[in-house]
């Protein structure tokens, strides 16, 4: 418990250990810690940036998807329209064709009717003439009464 040279010994030792710490211990450890701090900060920044990039990419994907869907919808729409057009066209063509066929048939029918009527009339004239000849027993001059008979036939 007496003060003695231990005091000086401890002072010298203390100074030496301060110097050793100052020279060999403190700088490398603090430098490493500062570097780690920087690296962590950089890493966090990079992560932030990556996150932002990811967000951007996601947004782009969504945009592209929407535009693709829109395009697809447009194409389908057009196709539908074209299909309807084609059907309409086909219908129109069919109707025209039907009309044409109907008209041709009608004309043929008309022709046949008038021909039949003509034939019938001619046959009726002949029949009427033959009937009248039988009734009048040739008292009628064919030439004199031709006009009358013709008139009769026309009325049939």
């Amino acid at each position, binding site marked *: 418990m007496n003060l003695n*040279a231990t005091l000086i010994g401890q002072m010298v030792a203390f*100074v030496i250990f301060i110097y050793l710490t100052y020279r060999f*211990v403190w700088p490398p450890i603090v430098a490493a810690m500062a570097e780690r701090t920087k690296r962590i900060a950089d890493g966090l920044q990079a992560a932030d940036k990556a996150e932002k990039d990811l967000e951007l990419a996601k947004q782009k994907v969504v945009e592209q998807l929407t535009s693709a869907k829109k395009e697809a919808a447009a194409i389908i729409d057009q196709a539908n329209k074209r299909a309807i057009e084609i059907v309409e066209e086909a219908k129109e063509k069919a109707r025209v064709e039907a009309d044409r066929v109907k008209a041709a048939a009608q004309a043929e029918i008309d022709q046949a009717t008038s021909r039949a009527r003509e034939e019938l009339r001619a046959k009726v004239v002949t029949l009427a003439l033959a009937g009248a000849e039988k009734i009048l027993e040739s008292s009628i001059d064919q030439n004199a009464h031709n006009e009358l008979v013709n008139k009769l036939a026309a009325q049939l």
Partner: protein
Amino acid sequence: MSAAEHEAITSSEYIKHHLTNLTYGQLPDGTWGFAHNGAEAAQMGFWAINVDTMGWSLFLGLVFFLIFRSVAKKVTSDAPTGLQNVVEAAVEFVDSNVKSMFPYKNTMIAPLALTILVWVFFMNAMDLIAIDLLPEIAKLVGVSLGADPHAVFFKVVPSTDPNITLGMAFVVFILILWFSITQKGLLGFLKELTLHPFSSSNPIVQTLFIPVNLVLELPGLIAKPVSLGLRLFGNLYAGEIIFILIAIMIGANLVLGFFGISLQIIWALFHILIIALQAFIFMVLTIVYMSMAYQTEEQH
């Protein structure tokens, strides 16, 4: 714990034995050697050395340096592992303390504070080793070397030796003077001592104030290292004495022995706080004193 084994020695002898340093110096007969008792050690005067506390102090200082140096050598900025975590925690702790208390630019303060914190902590922590363990080993070694078993003193806690604590405090004091003078100039430092707290615009009155100020300021300046060293010494010495007293109780009888053992454990647990706290206080006060040495008059 050994008190029971040595019934020949009384309690007071046991205490005295534990509180005496192993001192090397000039013996009364003129030769150099180890003192045989406390009185002989006191007679040796200043030029003697406490081999036990000095040795442990140097050993613990080396332990501190080698541990931290081994980490500093292979320190990486990757994920730290093992010892590096511990060392970095200490460095980080010291660094934040220095940064908050010492706002000036000096790269020496932080290493100084780290040295104090860890070294003083190690020295204090020697208190937790069973009180008789190392002295008994020393006694065995001493006796085998031919020494009188009652003359082998061995104090293992360096901070219970005022030489050790005051030695560190005086280095801090020298640094206070050094930084005061380099920062403020010799004149500025003297002005700080002589023109405060009383000052006057009248030069004659001011001259009269100078001795008064000096009387007020000088004790404050000198009290810094003394209080710094004695605070650490006092706390650890008191703790050590309590360990010794409880150890005597253990030797008394079986009931007191068990009581003493539990007390020893409780006191050791409580002492962990003191160990860390005193190391921290020594460091903080050193930083504060350094900061005050840097502070110029205008900032008062």
